[in-house]
């Protein structure tokens, strides 16, 4: 309850309540209508934002779900006398199925292609509704029977509509807020920003996208059902219109895409202005409000691409935070332990690649490579540029499937498994970093690490506790609250390691974490890798920085031209003549002997 006394909470609740209180105070039919429209469109924009904002897939066909919702509810009332309170769930179910059908093939499409495909689905739906004239009413439209009363969702009083619409708004807002705060929301943003890094910490990108599409479709459909009852008349050209899809997306953009408050703020500001403009400028003809929307869209993308929340949000929050507040008791949880993890006894094999081979066209990037990592050791992989080290790494973490041979991991229960995708590798206990760092730039350092921690817990508090523990190990505790984009290169590399460590791996694959660091950062990183090994994690590292590799590694594997050239103790490997030739060319030995 003390949460209600926080300025951010009570200010947002009051602002939201104003949507009901102001029309009730003014008591004009037009203001009621405006408020209802604002609630409906804000809810639609919120629902759209789950796909368009959190997942970053710009759907321009969202009216399809609105249309399905309104038509299903409308037809069930008209044909079978079924109350829309039930009909809307039937509509939502159909919309969810439709969303799956749409999301599955379009998931791989990017940017404009995804938008085009969603428009195409919308067109197909609209044309089919028009074609099925016998039961949909075709292009002439469909009248909802005017049975007045709560069971039929049709009221005499506008205020009753407003209460229902406001209920929908609060509901969608709540769902949207829950998603943003929960692990699922983290995963959606992670998939949007960097799909590879997300998969490496065990996120199933495809499932996350489908789930978002389904939730968004269901919400849009429910609101569509209600709006259909409010309008009491449905026609394909407006229920399934591209124009409405664009409008919904536009409100979210103007408010701030990907934020929780943005879609609501955008609708509250823009919709009344456009409706008023429609009234004032009606002398100029039909298209006025559409013209205003179009111009506004262009102005916003040119000058405020991050929307109102993106550009002003922080400043407003600061102002709000100065309002009186009652202190919250902060609880700190201890990181949950997982006693069931099977740590293999020191020296036992824990990860092995058996005769793996990978071709890219005519190039043999990996040729008959076998590598075994033992529990508790640090294994260094070295080799000249282009030797195929990173390709091997990608096969050891599931990002590339070998053409021949297999990669096996000793999983948590002590069973050898061959995972088939990056997320399954992560679940089997392999954490990896990327040579080119992949921070989630907009998230804080803490949130970046939490993303990894969510692999083993659903609870925010647990994830946070794990993240803080890992931050200690990786020297990031001081930086937990800064944005990831503000880190130095050394900090970003440590963040890569931290995110991987937060998945509680038993095997850590490090891809050039020392490259590009300044000398003092190298010293810190070396100490960090030792600490990681001492905590029971086996480490396999690619590294160019020779002194560090020599100092850290228990064993070294040399890769050249996609093959294993040498394997052994550091001191034997560096003095090997073939290894020297691979790095420096044959001329070196001639030069030395002469």
């Amino acid at each position, binding site marked *: 309850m003390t949460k209600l006394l926080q300025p951010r909470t009570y200010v947002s609740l009051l602002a939201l309540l104003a949507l009901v209180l102001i029309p009730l105070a003014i008591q004009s039919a037009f203001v009621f209508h405006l408020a209802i429209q604002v609630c409906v469109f804000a809810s639609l924009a919120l629902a759209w934002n789950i796909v368009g904002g959190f997942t970053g897939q710009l759907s321009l066909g969202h009216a399809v779900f609105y249309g399905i919702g309104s038509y299903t509810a409308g037809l069930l009332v008209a044909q079978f006398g079924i109350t829309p309170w039930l009909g809307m769930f039937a509509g939502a179910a159909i919309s969810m199925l439709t969303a799956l059908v749409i999301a599955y*093939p379009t998931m791989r*499409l990017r*940017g*404009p292609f995804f938008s085009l495909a969603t*428009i195409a689905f919308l067109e197909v739906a609209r044309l089919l509704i028009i074609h099925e004239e016998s039961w949909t009413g075709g292009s002439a439209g469909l009248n909802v029977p005017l049975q007045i009363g709560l069971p039929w969702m049709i009221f005499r009083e506008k205020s009753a509509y407003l209460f229902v619409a406001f209920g929908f708004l609060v509901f969608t807002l709540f769902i949207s807020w829950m998603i943003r705060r929960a692990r699922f929301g983290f995963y959606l943003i992670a998939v949007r920003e960097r799909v590879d890094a997300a998969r490496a910490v065990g996120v199933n990108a495809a499932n996350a996208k489908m789930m978002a599409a389904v939730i968004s479709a269901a919400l849009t459909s429910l609101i569509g059902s209600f709006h259909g009852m409010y309008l009491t008349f449905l026609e394909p050209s407006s229920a399934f219109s591209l124009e409405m899809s664009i409008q919904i997306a536009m409100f979210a953009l103007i408010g701030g895409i990907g934020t929780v408050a943005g879609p609501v703020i955008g609708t509250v500001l823009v919709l009344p202005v456009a409706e008023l403009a429609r009234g004032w400028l009606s002398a100029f003809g039909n298209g006025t409000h559409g013209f205003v929307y179009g111009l506004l869209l262009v102005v916003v993308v040119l000058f405020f691409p991050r929307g109102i929340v993106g550009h002003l949000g922080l400043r407003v929050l600061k102002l709000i935070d100065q309002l009186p507040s009652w202190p919250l008791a902060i609880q700190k949880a201890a990181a949950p332990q997982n006693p069931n993890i099977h740590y293999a006894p020191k020296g036992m094999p824990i990860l092995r690649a058996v005769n793996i081979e990978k071709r890219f066209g005519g190039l043999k990037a990996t040729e008959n490579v076998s590598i075994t990592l033992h529990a508790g050791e640090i294994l260094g992989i070295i080799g000249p540029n282009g030797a195929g080290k990173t390709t091997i790494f990608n096969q050891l973490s599931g990002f590339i499937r070998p053409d021949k041979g297999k990669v096996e991991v000793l999983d948590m229960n002590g069973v050898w498994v061959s995972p088939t995708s990056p997320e399954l590798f992560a679940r089997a206990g392999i954490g990896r970093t990327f040579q080119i760092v992949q921070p989630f730039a907009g998230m804080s350092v803490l949130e970046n690490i939490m993303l990894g921690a969510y692999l083993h817990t659903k609870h925010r508090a647990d994830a946070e506790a794990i993240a803080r523990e890992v931050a200690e190990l990786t020297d990031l505790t001081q930086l937990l609250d800064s944005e990831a984009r503000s880190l130095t290169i050394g900090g970003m590399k440590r963040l890569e390691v931290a995110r991987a460590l937060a998945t509680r791996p038993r095997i850590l694959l490090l891809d050039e974490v020392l490259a590009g660091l300044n000398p003092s950062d190298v010293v810190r990183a070396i100490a960090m890798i030792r600490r990681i090994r001492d905590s029971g994690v086996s480490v396999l590292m690619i590294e160019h920085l020779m002194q560090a590799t020599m100092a850290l590694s228990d064993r070294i594997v040399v890769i050249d031209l996609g093959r294993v050239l040498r394997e052994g103790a550091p001191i034997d490997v560096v003095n090997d003549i073939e290894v020297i030739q691979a790095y420096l060319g044959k001329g070196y030995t001639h030069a030395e002997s002469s």
Partner: protein
Amino acid sequence: MSLLLQLLVNGLLLGGSYAIISIGLTLIFGVVRIVNFAHGEFLMVGMYVVWLCAQHLGLHPYASIPIVVLILFGLGALMQRNIIQPLLSADGHIQIFATVGVSTALLNLALILFGADIRKVDASFGTQPFSIGGITFVSGQLITFVVAIVVATALHLFLRHTYTGRAFRALAQNRVAAALMGVNVNAMYVLAFGMGTALVGLAAALMTVQYPAFPTVGSYFVLTAFVIVVLGGMGSLPGAVIGAMFIGLIDSFAGYYVGPDLKEVVYFLVFLSILSIRPTGLFGLGQGSE
């Protein structure tokens, strides 16, 4: 037999109209790497310009080609210079919203200025049908078809054999590397975008003979053009022409055998299935969807 042949001819001739709209779209995408959602509205603007020329100057649509091509080149260049150029390195969704915004604004502007009525140009030349061996042709459609093929070939040669054409192709592959080789990126983009919209102006002049102008005429044609361009592989000229013929044939045959109100459903379904199997289009070289 003659029915099949007639449907084939109808499909190919319709494909000619689609081709000439699609060429401009694919040129813009190929060079500037922008999917111009306002392309259809440029067609609509062009058709109104042609109608105004006929109304006030008494020009036949074919005679108004120079005027409409110039005006649309200017509009396209303006849009590139003032809206697209500042957003070249912006997020993908911002670029989509920008062209969607222009599209919405233009469509509604037409609604304000001309109302929702359809505006038809009365032209005698171009509308007469004639028949060869029992197959009916409409002269205007035949002209559009021939012009589409000629323009596509000319553009193809231009891209291969002139400095500007090579610069366009270089930009399409790597903007930064092209700039390092001394290509004036911004000027080339303005030129390419202007050429793309000028081509849709040409399409407007040719098509106004058969089709009336109305505010949403653009969305009617451009969705089809998008389907064609994606099918043909975004940015590929030959792909756009072949895609246009393909969709023209589907349109003609599905219109006859499935039903005129469902022909669009058929080619949207073809489009969606191809997109999901091969996101880069049938003739794309694999870089289209990136």
